[in-house]
């Protein structure tokens, strides 16, 4: 498995509204079973299972077995990697602007 393939799997998994809805559902409430997730989607159980498999392959969800049940959790680690790759550098100017503002306001205040 290469880095390029990891990224392909990740973006392919995100390029589907049903799969994004599954991630949204897990974002609101983590640790859901397949039955629980099926209740929120107008789709067959088999369809939901297939979407979950794509999300798991892209490492966007983690699963834990509890007895006979499989619980699904949103795994934010690959999204953090996207953030660091393209977005985090834009944070620095914003943080610097805030620090500059604070310094200027506090200087005027004193």
């Amino acid at each position, binding site marked *: *498995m290469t880095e390029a393939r*990891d990224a392909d799997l990740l973006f392919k998994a995100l390029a589907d509204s049903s799969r994004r809805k599954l991630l949204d559902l897990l974002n609101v409430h983590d*640790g859901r079973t397949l039955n629980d997730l099926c209740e929120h989607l107008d789709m067959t159980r088999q369809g939901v299972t297939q979407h979950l498999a794509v999300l798991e392959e892209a490492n966007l969800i*983690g*699963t834990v077995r509890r007895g006979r049940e499989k619980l699904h*959790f949103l795994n934010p680690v690959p999204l*953090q*990697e996207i953030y660091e790759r393209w977005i985090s550098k834009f944070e620095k100017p914003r943080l610097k602007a805030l620090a500059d503002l604070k310094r200027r306001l506090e200087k005027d205040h004193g």
Partner: protein
Amino acid sequence: MAKSTYVYVSYIRTTPEKLWAALTIDTEFQKQYWFGNTCLSGWTAGSTWKMEGPDGTLMDAGEIVESDPPKRLVIRWTHQWKPELKEEGPSLCTMLLEQEGSAVKLSITHTIERENSKLITAVSGGWPKVISNLKSLIETGSIAVDVNKK
């Protein structure tokens, strides 16, 4: 389910032995991916465990519940620094390392026996950054993404 849980998964291109060392005894390496923090422990079941901040502040403390190198580590983990997190009491952090092809699947599960835990909310923001840094550091030798890397 009257508990709060978070599950984090990352595939890191390394060996289970190297990853185990990075998570446990290699404190100099740890500082680089854990924002200057270090974990100190004997790393065997029953030994005490603590995490210190860059200036030596005690951040978290507890003990090793299970240790099966280089596969499974369970830490009983109580936050120490912020009173509102400390009062929630001990949480359980399980690290599972599984070889999958040329990579190691690292699964970290952090659980506490209470609903809407503030501790779990706090770690849910921290762990992805730590794991992402760890992966990048092990695979490329640096924590920042080098855009010139071919």
